């Protein structure tokens, strides 16, 4: 099978020390937290509004936060027990609901739609919306919005993103190996919802066991195939995946559906299968805990569990460690041990403390431009941004940047390119809103 390519890209922590080695063969274990604090802003769009009060008893899967606005997403209780606190948003802290686990593991009454193969395709989307799905790859785009296709557009192909190109993470890998059937059911459901003819599971070639498992599950399913991709970051970026798998580009400023493609994370697909066949909302996800912890693990963690509790279970961390939610290339840092596991966090990676090296002047070596998967020239954009010429930076494409961090990774002068672009995009967006 063809190993498709996209532009640029890097091989962070390549080879034996890819960071994935410690957890790639570890089966997923269930983690049971003592308490959870579920934030209301795990998705793109307006935060959900809490509909429970402190002192109330909730069961697993019970709606606790209602979607607000077009890009809103429902939030459900991930453990059963007593609501101890409903915190409103203030000082940059999001609104959240804290629940004390009573370990009774009680579920609310579930309302399945039916089997993915034979249910009413019209009922799939409402089920997904009710289940509170948002993209599990990290960006947190509401799944029902992604699957709501505007009139006139046709989705020809559904791509399941099993690339997992980020360093360290093995959660999607383990999901595909252990539950390929569930993942595939999600794909079939999505294809039926769109009446799409083709479904492709795209997997990097460093996960042969996942490929084998998915191929086995896809056997006999019409229109479904498994595609091998070169192992290169950011293979799993939505735009890069579409370029590699479908051979087309998403037009600038548009969504994948404008290229006739919808991309779903494998984790999201599994959640779709649960939502349709079992009526289960999204209340837990697989998290890879690795790096400088005593026992690296793949855990199935209820949403809202604190990072500190998970890390303690894995052997604890040294003081002042750096705890990254996600992979090394794009993952943000957890400020403290109270940070919750969200629908989008595929991993908790622990690093020792250590300042980033001091940036030195750019030597225009062009390595950043060579690895940019979008075809941008990062050093020029940075030059314009640093000399306060935001307009010039915009002209050469800073708004097209996907913040993958390849340029920062590559830069021999250690310049903080991607964070610079992140801030510049924020400023430009703020200016546009003013107009």
């Amino acid at each position: 099978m063809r190993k498709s390519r996209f532009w640029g890209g890097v091989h962070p922590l390549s080879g034996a020390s890819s960071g994935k080695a410690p957890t790639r063969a570890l089966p997923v274990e269930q983690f049971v937290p003592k308490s959870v604090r579920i934030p209301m802003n795990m998705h793109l769009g307006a935060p959900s509004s809490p509909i429970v009060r402190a002192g109330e008893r909730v069961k697993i899967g019970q709606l606790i936060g209602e979607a607000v606005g077009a890009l809103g997403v429902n939030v459900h209780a991930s453990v059963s027990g007593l609501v101890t606190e409903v915190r409103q948003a203030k000082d940059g802290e999001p609104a959240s609901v804290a629940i004390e686990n009573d370990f009774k593991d009680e579920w609310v009454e579930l309302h399945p739609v039916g089997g993915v193969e034979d249910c009413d395709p019209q009922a799939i989307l409402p089920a997904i919306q009710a289940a509170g799905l948002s993209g599990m790859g990290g960006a947190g785009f509401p799944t029902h919005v992604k699957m709501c296709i505007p009139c006139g557009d046709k989705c020809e192909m559904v791509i399941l993103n099993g690339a997992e190109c980020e360093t360290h993470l093995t959660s999607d890998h383990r999901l595909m190996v252990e539950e390929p059937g569930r993942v595939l059911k999600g794909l079939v459901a999505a294809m039926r919802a769109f009446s799409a003819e083709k479904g492709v599971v795209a997997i990097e070639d460093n996960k042969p066991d996942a490929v084998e498992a998915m191929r086995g599950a896809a056997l006999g399913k019409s229109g479904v195939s498994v595609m091998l991709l070169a192992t290169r970051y950011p293979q799993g970026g939505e735009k890069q995946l579409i370029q590699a798998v479908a051979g087309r580009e998403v037009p600038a400023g548009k969504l994948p559906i404008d290229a006739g493609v919808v991309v779903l994370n494998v984790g999201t697909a599994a959640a779709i299968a649960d939502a349709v066949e079992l009526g289960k909302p999204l209340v837990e996800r697989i998290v890879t805990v690795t790096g400088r912890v005593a026992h690296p693990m793949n855990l199935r963690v209820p949403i809202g569990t604190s990072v500190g509790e998970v890390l303690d279970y894995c052997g604890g961390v040294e003081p002042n460690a750096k705890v990254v939610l996600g992979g090394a290339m794009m993952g943000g840092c957890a400020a403290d041990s109270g940070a919750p596991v969200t629908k989008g966090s595929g991993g908790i990676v622990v690093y020792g403390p250590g300042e980033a090296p001091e940036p030195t002047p750019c030597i225009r070596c062009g390595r950043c431009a060579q690895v940019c998967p979008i075809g941008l020239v990062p050093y020029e954009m940075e030059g314009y941004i640093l000399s306060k010429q935001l307009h010039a930076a915009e002209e050469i494409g800073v708004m097209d940047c996907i913040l993958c961090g390849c340029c920062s990774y590559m830069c021999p002068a250690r310049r903080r390119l991607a964070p610079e672009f992140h801030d510049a995009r924020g400023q430009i967006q703020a200016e546009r809103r003013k107009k």
Partner: protein
Amino acid sequence: MIDGAKVLALVFGCLLTDNFVFSRFFAERSALAENKLSAAARIGAAVAVIAAAAAIVSSALYFFVLSPLKLTYLGTVTAVLSVAGAYYLAERFLKVKELLRFDHPTALHALIAVDSVLVGAALLGAQAENFLYGALTGIFGALGFLLAVVLMAGVRERIALSDVPEGLKGLPISLISAGLIALALIGFSGFGG
């Protein structure tokens, strides 16, 4: 009367080795002024057109009017008048006013004060062996000027993003850049014979 090798030498000389900006120092200020490539090309083109026209007019006046009448000592005044004439012609027919963004009543005064390339070209046009060489000098000199303006604008765009020491910012570093480019263009000496 027209020597092919000589014309070639003249073309190369005017464009590269004897460039109005890099070796004749005619037009340092306008050539070194513009940061934006597009703006530089626009202004440079407008000035180049006037310079070429001035050189042709001045050369024609010198060889067809002043020389026969033995009035060659009026060369400088004629050259300046040619610039004035060329400027008014260009302004009328080519709308250079908008290109140069002049809105000042004494635009001519300002233009000459800034760009000695105009008077320089006109004087040079009158200094050649005959009218043809004078006219060619004007045209290729103007083209060379345009080349210099565009080259310098490109370099200045880069300098604008650089961490130039405070005392050298602006004109000094532009002059040093022009000096380095002139150093490079010395390699073309000898071209065309």
